[in-house]
């Protein structure tokens, strides 16, 4: 299922939430929409789902405007999640699948398998409100995909999940991709996108910053990044010749170098002052690319980067 956004624009009062965004989401890929909180990810997704309507521009599914049938072919996990708390797990899954046009025979045939896959089978007849938040999230994920949708839209799927559950979900997503489904997901955690998506689009302040295949984007930005792990204060590195930018993390420092910078020179200068435990040439992370292209102050982003990891 191919999804196209053409010059989508949405304004709330005097705030431009989404500003002239065009995207092409090819069939059968995992597509990531990336950007900090408030960048316009959720608004974009809501417009795809016809929950809010764009002020201008259009959304095309396989070249057509989405019709009623579209709702049966899409699985949507909104950022604002919720389920019927008083219903049992199996009731909720059945009800929501029925609303996607599936009959009870189909649902009964697969509900146990899905619940088992996310370790919820034993709670099958418990009420949703008895589940922990993480369990509810897994259940919600199941309700999103049980009707075998062609297009799956996941808004901030991983937020609030522990690494173990994240792994389970990631496996399912990769499985779905193998089955030819198109998966669109949004996240403000760049590492997640980096590990999952084939294609991506970065947005910031409602505008598209960059989009395309992950591999293309990375190669375009070259291999001008270095990760070093040192003992002592590394603040001086920022001022070294050839260093374009520096980001400090808990356990390591990431450097963006100017083109044609001799990495050996950098290493020499660092070794003079502090002990180096590790020195590694790396591909630029999406985070770095984002900072670089969106011209965002790294201070604004550091909170995001420190978030959860896949």
């Amino acid at each position, binding site marked *: 299922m191919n999804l196209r956004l053409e010059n989508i624009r949405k304004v709330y009062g005097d705030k431009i939430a989404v500003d002239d965004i065009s995207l092409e989401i090819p069939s059968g890929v995992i597509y990531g929409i990336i950007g900090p909180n408030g960048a316009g990810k959720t608004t974009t997704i809501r417009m795809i*789902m016809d929950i809010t309507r764009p002020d201008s521009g259009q959304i095309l599914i396989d070249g057509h405007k989405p019709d009623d049938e579209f*709702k049966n072919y899409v699985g949507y996990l909104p950022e604002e999640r919720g389920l019927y708390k008083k219903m049992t797990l199996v009731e909720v899954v059945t009800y929501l699948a029925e*609303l996607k046009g599936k009959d009870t025979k189909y649902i009964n045939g697969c509900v146990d398998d899905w619940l088992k896959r996310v370790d919820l089978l034993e709670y099958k007849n418990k009420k949703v409100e008895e589940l922990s938040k993480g369990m509810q999230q897994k259940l919600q994920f199941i309700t999103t995909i049980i009707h075998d949708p062609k297009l799956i839209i996941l808004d901030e799927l991983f937020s609030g999940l522990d690494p173990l559950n994240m792994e389970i979900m990631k496996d399912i997503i990769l499985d779905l991709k193998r089955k030819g489904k198109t998966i669109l997901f949004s996240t403000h955690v760049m590492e997640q996108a980096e590990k999952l998506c084939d294609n991506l689009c970065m947005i910031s302040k409602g505008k598209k910053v960059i989009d395309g295949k992950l591999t293309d984007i990375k190669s375009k930005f070259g291999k001008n990044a270095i990760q070093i792990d040192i003992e002592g204060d590394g603040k001086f590195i920022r001022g070294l010749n050839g260093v374009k930018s520096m980001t400090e993390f808990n356990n390591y420092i990431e450097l963006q170098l100017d083109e044609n910078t001799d990495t050996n020179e950098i290493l020499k200068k660092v070794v003079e002052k502090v002990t180096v435990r590790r020195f590694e040439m790396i591909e630029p992370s999406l985070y770095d690319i984002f900072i670089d292209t969106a011209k965002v102050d790294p201070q604004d982003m550091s909170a995001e980067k420190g978030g959860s990891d896949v």
Partner: protein
Amino acid sequence: MSKFWVIFKKEYAQVVKKKSFIIGIILTPALMIGFTVLPAMLARVESSSTEQMAIIDQSKLHIGQRFAEEIAEYKLDETEDSYYEVRRIFEIDPIENERFEQLNDSLRNEIIEKNIKYYFVIKSEPLVNDTNIYMVTNSDNFTTIRRFERKISKVLSTLRLTNADINLGVDSVLNITRRIDLKIKDAKGEVIPFQIKYFAAIAMVGIIFGMIVGYGQMVMRSVIEEKNSRIMEVMMSSVSAFQLMLGKVLGLGAATLTQVAIWFAIGAIISTQKTALDISPAIERILFNGPIIIFFILFLVSGYIMFSTFFALIGSIVTNEKEAQSFVMPVTMSMILPFLVGIYVIQEPHSIFAVTISMIPIFAPTMMMMRLVFIVPTLSEYSMFSGIVGEATLSLLIVVFFTIFMIWLTSKIFRIGILMHGKRPTLPEIMKWIKS
């Protein structure tokens, strides 16, 4: 529309499976039997007892004695016993004030202790001043009061005539000027006691009111709950807002109808046993009356859809139930109004005011039912185009058209309202949604 049915089924099952619904089904027949059978039983109990009274007479004219003789003519059904039993007549001198106060106090106590129901005080000079005669009682039974008034007037008139020096015989003057006990029949020559009409109207209006407010608010709560549990976006990715709204309104409406259908089934069983249960023909005329039953169902259904759509609208724009209460108040008040102005409407069901108010959509379901019960359509009036049935048909059509308008209006606001969180939309915002 298959998705509509999925929602319909779920909303319906959710209510019907509840304990309160089952309890309602068990309790209602009990109340219904109570309502139809109890009056007959009460009437029998009442007719077997006489009402006790006493008289303090300071007139020196034996007015008390004469009055007692007059009211003795009111007999219990098919017996020789008097309906009113004058236990004692205290004839005392007007100057015996102390004795009077003693008697007055003790009789007052007798009334409080329910040993007697009335006592009369006849002071001196009653022929000159009417206020010298009064009755003490806790009862407001206007039939009895009317009877007493008439008889005491007769006694006083007789005495006044005797004192006056006129040529005609006292009896013939009394005969000429006698007052009558007015029997009330309606235009069709039927005698349906006011009380029965009143209770039937209150019961039917009460059911319509209870169902609309009860189930209507259930629609509202269900919308608020889904809003608060953040499931609306998931729902909107599967169904349209219109399907969701209609599924909720009609699913819960079906639960209402289920309950009413069970009542009717029980009513039908009662009607086959009416001889055994000794249901009075008057109750039968109202409760087993074709047009009344049909319009009851139609007004219940249309009124329910009209109000529950409105309740769905409220649910969609508020953020929590507490906030909803300020919107629910006016709606509930508009439904309580019939109980207030009802007193006038039941006395003058044909007045312009009564006709007008029963044509206003939000009042029609209750006010029209009230009028129907009080006018009681007869077989000859079963015409869709005239008389009370014609008026009811017109009022029903008004309700239906207004309801269609409400659904249109609500569907415009509902879609946007249910996805809003944290903030209640302002009126200008809502107007913008309607226009869009």
